[in-house]
């Protein structure tokens, strides 16, 4: 079932729950992994994924179809992530470096993290980027999204996104040079 049919079914009271269930099944993994790469911890990612879909449930009735359904969902998820990280920094009065350290420790110690050393190093390098730049990098590099779609999600121009991604790559390369062992 395509997105247009899903929305039509959602707008019909009799098939609303069924359509929403299909929508969650279709997009849950994309949304979850998008969030997980940002917040690192599984429990936090689980909470934010649920919150994203609950907000989608509330707002889908007013979805006009001006953007694609998946970019609309990504936008909600992105806002959830950025708000979560901003709250985390405010709550503990932690400077950015300490949050990076905390997330970096989670990568090393968490049960649900594994992979080659080089991949773990890349994740640590990503944590040194500002949150918004990390978002852009994740969407371009891991999800292989078009700049136009990322622009729709973040509300940033394509030119600015290209510059941001280029800068992120340079910072990661520098991190690898500095942490060569």
């Amino acid at each position: 079932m395509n997105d247009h049919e899903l929305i039509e079914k959602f707008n019909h009271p009799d098939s609303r729950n069924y359509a929403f269930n299909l929508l969650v099944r279709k997009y849950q993994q994309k949304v979850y992994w998008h969030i997980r790469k940002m917040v690192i911890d599984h429990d936090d990612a689980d909470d934010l994924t649920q919150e994203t879909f609950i907000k989608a449930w509330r707002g889908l009735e007013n979805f006009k179809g001006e953007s694609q359904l998946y970019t609309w969902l990504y936008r909600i998820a992105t806002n959830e992530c950025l708000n979560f990280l901003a709250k985390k920094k405010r709550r503990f009065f932690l400077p950015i470096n300490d949050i990076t350290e905390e997330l970096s420790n989670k990568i090393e110690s968490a049960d649900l993290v594994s992979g080659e050393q080089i991949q773990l190093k890349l994740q640590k390098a990503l944590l040194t980027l500002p949150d918004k730049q990390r978002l852009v990098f994740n969407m371009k590099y891991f999800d292989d999204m078009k700049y136009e779609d990322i622009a729709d999600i973040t509300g940033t121009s394509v030119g600015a996104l290209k510059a941001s991604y280029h800068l992120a790559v340079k910072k990661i390369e520098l991190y690898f040079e500095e942490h060569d062992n």
Partner: protein
Amino acid sequence: MEYSSNKFDLDKLPKETVFQVPDGYFEDLPMRIQARTSAKTQTVPLVTWSARRTWASLAACTLVAILGYFTLMPRQDSIGEESLSGVKTEDIEGYLVHQNIHQADYIEHIDETEVSASTNIEDSEVLDELKLSSQDIIQSIDTQDVVEDI
């Protein structure tokens, strides 16, 4: 896989995720989300403010106040007469004595025509009722006053 730091190329790095999820996580997630959405849709409807409802309430309150005023005010006037009929004469007298009002004071305020109309009794009948002897009457009359009247 060997990577030299000097030749590090991000594009050559396999795009693998280092993160994992608990077994069966994505099978359960839709049900958990659906449970939360159905719980949220069963909320009690909120009573919202409405200008029309506020004005209707004010109009109703004003109407009740006006009706109450015109209903209760006349009743307050009639309460005295109606309730006095149920009070014993001895109690009224006791009350007047308690209030330091003597018999002579309130007799002065009684309208004679009112008394005669209400009783409808002739003077001679009154004297008969009082059972006074003519000697008692003569003693009580101030003779000087009688002479003046003549």
